């Protein structure tokens, strides 16, 4: 049953003009960045990364929560049929997730591959960027579903969603920076390493930076990051952590949805 709903959601959303806009903005921006960044590949990949870290969470959060709350009446209808709430929730989650990922991969892929010399950039880090973007899509879709189940009022929902995005995108880093500057006399390497795990956006960024070998700039602290996240095992740990970031909000959301009075 999950697959039927997922397929339905996927087909329903892939035709949505917003996904087209999403895909198109990736196409335009990534093409622009790769075109302008030809002189400086390292800076270009850093810009592409920031594009992904900005747009993917923002769009997944907004699109996910709005799509979820707008389909409430349809869900009420589905619930009357012999379909479990779990199937409804997960089906919608999967369908939306695949729709968003596909739009992201298409837009990003077409936009940057047109001009990028992969041999020069290294296929590995580019593939990693696409993979991390896809993972982040699911992470923030899960968070969006959780919030949308908990908050019914649309204007409140929208506010909370934007706040969450703002928190993960910039506020978290600003707080972290403030804490390190204020408590800098204490050794904080381990704390910053843990802090990176507690923000999926930071985690994705650190994983990619370690992969394009910016870790050399990190000195002693970098050695710590390199040791725990730099090798294949570290990469697996990081990706597993992003998996947890997907699973836990989705599970909490599903629990709330199962008990929810529709």
């Amino acid at each position: 049953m999950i697959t039927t709903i997922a397929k339905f959601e996927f087909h329903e959303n892939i035709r949505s003009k917003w996904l087209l806009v999403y895909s198109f903005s990736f196409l335009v921006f990534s093409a622009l960045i790769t075109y302008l960044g030809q002189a400086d590949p390292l800076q270009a990949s850093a810009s592409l990364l920031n594009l992904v870290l900005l747009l993917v969470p923002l769009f997944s959060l907004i699109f996910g929560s709005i799509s979820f709350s707008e389909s409430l009446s349809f869900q009420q209808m589905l619930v009357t049929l012999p379909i479990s709430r779990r199937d409804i929730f997960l089906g919608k989650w999967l369908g939306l997730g695949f729709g968003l990922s596909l739009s992201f991969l298409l837009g990003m892929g077409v936009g940057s591959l047109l001009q990028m010399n992969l041999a020069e950039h290294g296929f590995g880090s580019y593939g990693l960027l696409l993979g991390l973007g896809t993972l982040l899509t699911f992470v923030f879709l899960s968070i969006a579903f959780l919030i949308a189940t908990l908050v019914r009022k649309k204007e409140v929902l929208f506010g909370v969603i934007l706040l969450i995005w703002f928190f993960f995108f910039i506020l978290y880093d600003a707080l972290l920076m403030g804490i390190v500057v204020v408590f800098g006399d204490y050794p904080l390497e381990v704390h910053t390493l843990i802090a990176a795990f507690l923000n999926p956006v930071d985690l994705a960024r650190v994983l990619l930076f370690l992969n394009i070998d910016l870790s050399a700039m990190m000195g002693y602290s970098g050695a710590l990051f390199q040791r725990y996240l730099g090798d294949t095992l570290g990469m697996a740990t990081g990706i597993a952590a992003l998996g947890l970031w997907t699973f836990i909000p989705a599970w909490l959301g599903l629990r709330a949805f199962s008990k929810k009075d529709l």
Partner: protein
Amino acid sequence: MNLRLLFCCALLLYGPSSFAATLNVCGNCPYSTLHAAIASAHQHDVIRVHPGTYAEGMMVIDKPLTITGIDFPTIDGHHEKHVFYIRADDVTIERLQIQNSGQSDISEYAGIRVEESKRCRILNNRFHDNTYGIYLAKVDTCSVVANTVTGNTLSEVSGGNGLHLWYSTHLTVQDNLFERQRDGMYLEFSGDSLIEDNISRHNIRYGLHFMYSQRNRFYRNTFIENQTGVAVMYSHDIEMAENRFEKSWGATSYGLLLKDINDTRVVRNTFDGNTVAVVLDGANRNRFEHNIFSHNGWAMNVFGNSDGNVISQNNFISNAFHVTTNTKSVQNIFAGNYWDDYRGYDLDHDGVGDVPFRPMKLFSLWIAEHPELVSLMGSPVIEFLETAERVFPVMTPKMLEDHTPQMKRFADL
């Protein structure tokens, strides 16, 4: 008086060209081994080594000789001590392949070791798998030209250097390649020498390393992908021009480390892709002019113990951080450089920005104090901070200022 004149004439008659014989060494020549030829040679004779492999090490040369290879015959030391051990003036060794010197924990064995002599010439040889490639100790006026020295050094402790100079002066080191040794070139107590057009790469420690070596000139050398870059220490009056310091990338790597280096000119060099391009540690009164700093993590790291350095007319392009320092007082002059992220204006169109540039941003100050902040590298919060610094200039640390930042990048040299 007469006696002295006669002696002079005798010397002239006995001069190098007049009676120099040529001794051939090959399987069925009069001499089948180099040892035999060296033993029978007279002063200033020429020994011609024909193609082949000669399993001979520890050749002591104690008279002026020229040893010339034809098509690079292989002289294999079979891991016994030095392959050539030169203790006489005016020895020339050319066009040989010299391999497998000994390796020892107490002695420093080399492909060619020259000791206490003058005017040696080591030209056009190929060195393979020697502990030290060329080792000159207490030597004067030697030339080391167009050699390739390839080692197989695995550890800093057991390995040796490509070119090792100890208490040697007035040398010419030109057009050589040093690779996969411990240090590509190493100078200690060696001065007044010209080192130019060499390539030093893939060495497991430094591309170039010197201490207590004054008045040397380094021109157009390339140091690339050495594990820790180039480190020069405890010397003064050096000139480094048009060298390339590239791709020293790692947690403890730098392009050029100047420790206790004074009154040195570093001009028209290229520093590209290093973790830290230049480190100034206790370095005073040095001039950095017309250099290009590009794609480095940090272009310059100036320690507080460095004083009176002038950094002017350089290009700073696409560095993650241009300058960092751990001091709050201004002791070094940054003037008239081009900074690629300068956002000032130039109303009178004289090519000089009207607003001073502060290469040291708040974040680069913080990151110098708290290295763990590096986990925020690339975070939008840094961009945000820099925008804030532009809007509220009071936030930017004032210790470093370029009052005449250039609007246009200096043409590449």
